[in-house]
């Protein structure tokens, strides 16, 4: 059972792509790899107003992630709280994880030569903080949700 979710209130999202840069700067990433992404469909007219909604995507932290078993060094792991993360010490940058992922979520970090992906900023979570994208979301449209079993 996954414990967390990042939810986008698309009513408040203004497609400013702040989350993407908040994430990248927090992880020290250069241009290239991108760990979360805002996208939108082409505009269409709704009752006279051209409209579109923004969507947010990062790693889905699958219940049964395909990237974990294919990792030759067991660098890709799933925590008991559901977070799928890369142990940077063990990663050799072979990118088998990216090839196995239906959405090619894991990214190659050219600065380290290793894979990197959204890990809900678990180091921040452990300090009682929220993921970088949520903490700094320009319009507070992103929410970090702790899932509770009922």
């Amino acid at each position, binding site marked *: 059972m996954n414990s967390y979710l990042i939810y986008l209130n698309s*009513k408040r999202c203004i497609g400013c792509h*702040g989350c993407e840069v908040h994430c990248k700067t927090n992880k020290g990433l250069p241009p290239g790899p991108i760990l979360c992404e805002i996208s939108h469909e082409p505009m269409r007219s709704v009752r006279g107003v051209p409209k579109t909604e923004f969507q947010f995507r990062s790693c889905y932290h699958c219940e049964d992630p395909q990237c974990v078993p294919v990792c030759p060094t067991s660098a890709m792991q799933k925590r008991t709280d559901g977070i799928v993360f890369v142990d940077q010490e063990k990663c050799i940058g072979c990118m088998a994880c990216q090839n196995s992922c239906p959405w090619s979520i894991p990214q190659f970090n050219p600065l380290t030569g290793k894979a990197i992906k959204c890990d809900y900023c678990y180091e921040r979570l452990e300090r009682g903080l929220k993921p970088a994208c949520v903490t700094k979301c320009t319009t507070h449209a992103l929410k970090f949700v702790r899932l509770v079993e009922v």
Partner: protein
Amino acid sequence: MVKSIWSMCGMCTVRCPIRVEVEDGAVTWIEGNPHLLDGALCAKGSAGLALLADNERPQQPLIRQGGRGAGRWQAVSWDAALDYVAEKLTAIIAKDGARSTILSCRGGPFIDPAKAFLQALGSPNFTDHDSACGRNVHHASQSVYGLGRADMAYDIKNAKHLVLFGRNLLEAMKVGEANQVLDMLDAGGKLTYVDVRQTVTGLKASRFFLVRPGTDYALTLGILHGVIKAETYDKEFVNRFTTGFDDLAAFIEPYTVEWAAQECGIKAKSLYEFIHELGQDRPRVIFHPGWMLARYHDSFYASRSLHLLNVLMGNVEIKGGQIIAKGAKDCGRKGIRNLVDGIPKSEEKRADGVGWKYPHFDKGPGLFHLFYESMQSGEPYPLKSLICYRHDPLTCFPDPTAQKRALDTLDLIVSIDTHYSEFGWYSDVILPESVYLERDCPISVQKGPKPRLVYRQQAVKPRLDTKPGWWIFKQLAERMGVGNYFPYNTIEDLWAWQLEPTGVKTADFEDKGFVELTDKPLIHDRETLPSLIKTPSGSIEFISAKLAKEGIDSFKPYSSPIKPPEGMFRLVVGRSAVNSHGHTINNPLLHELLPTNTLWINKRAATKLGVNEGDWLDVIAHDSGVSGLIQAKVTEFIHPEAVYCIHGFGRQIPLQSRAYHAGMSDQKLQTGLLADMDPVGGGLCLCEGFVEVRRSSKNSTRSVEL
């Protein structure tokens, strides 16, 4: 050990308050000040880290070696650069007087040392970028309230209905203001958006009017007509606090709602519905009077009409309306000291003619573009040097080629900036300022319903051989023999000197990064409104006494904008949420998000020209033949008479490898517009140029090269 530093963002001129984390001398985290923004920050704000790490900015003082703009520089020490500037300036002043020196800056809260330097030299010619931005709005505001545009704050969060004429709030990206708009919408407020194209702000609108370019003024007249005829305005407010209403009512007589709808190309029924809603929602209706309105020949009058609509809504000095910005005095406190206060002002008349040739303009920063005329004519007196501090006129103003012809008449051009601006590249000397994370700034008062003292604190030592502005101007002043007006050696000295009358100490900023001058927002009682209005009559003026004195009409009969000739379009410009005009285009992380601009063109117009999405286009200025190359973005959500691009691209500085020649520069296509000024508002008319659009020969599909 993590150190927390309070500062203000410097990625754009909004200057959102930030908290910066520093670990082992390196910035590791930037977030919006939690006390004011609850951590929120935009993409540009976070990309400040990439700016800090970037080496594609001036790394030490540079003195030009080859011809202007040739890009041959000699790297020199600060002493050598400052001595060079001071020697040149001294020789110029000895021959042509202090008045021959112009100093321009981008504007904002930290300009005191720059302004003080020029004032100490004895020149009246201080200026800024505003004639390509908000001058029309500012002068319109003064003509109605006797107060400038910065004297009005908008309580958007508590409004019921926000009306925006091309004011793209959600991409202009004042983080606090953007949140106010969304809070208003969350609370059930309405947003009416008017533009010649759809924007992110318009996406959130409950009503959208796609108008013919250049007809904003017509729409405001039609709304005024509708509101007055339906008698849905605040009569009590108008009777008590205004003069000249009858003149307005008589003036708008021919400008019916049907007429306006037809002129703008929208449905009269929708316009009537909108006017009906205004009656229901007032007084908590805000007509934003515009920000960058250096656009059309009647933009001053369009903005003035928007101000008048606010008055008819009776929204002045109420929750959910316009609140007159308060300063230290309104809180019963003493304000900070400014360097300029202790320096005698020059008695000379300004070379741009503001204050004597143009008595109706606000003397403050004058009008930059008018200096170009003076440079070339030598009237009213010769101009010999120009210092631009954080200002890039070659990106900001139209027609850089025409500007360079005027600049070539000067003996000295100096750029003080954090990055290579187009102006810096054309200068004789570049004095590189440290980027905002590397520098302290003087303390400043932020006026508003809840005025506060704010400061920018250095987070890390400069990576490169750069210096802060307060130091640079003090050094120059000392070399020019006027160092006595700069009573400080360190920033701590300056802060203490500024704060002395206020009773506030630098340590008081440590808690939150700012010092509030009042606990609660100051909204004065309606009864006291006349004491807050600063017009000659003491009332809100439908007919401006100041303009009347100069023989200028407060209302202008409408004249329909020229329709672009066949195959031509009106070139309109705007901005995106991920860059700030020209100055962030080369930022590695922002360049990744928006590497170039595109030309928005209406789908039907594109079909006629045989243009498809992504095609390369030649865009040709109709009066000069100057051309640009750009890819097409074909959309039905732009008016067929307009094409649009994001401003700031098409840069020509080889050392900015990412921005170099990326995208198209709109200002280069704005030929002939440098002298096209709204004579009443003082703003340039940047959207009065036509361009021809052709499918470029670059689109060929064959190549027979070996």
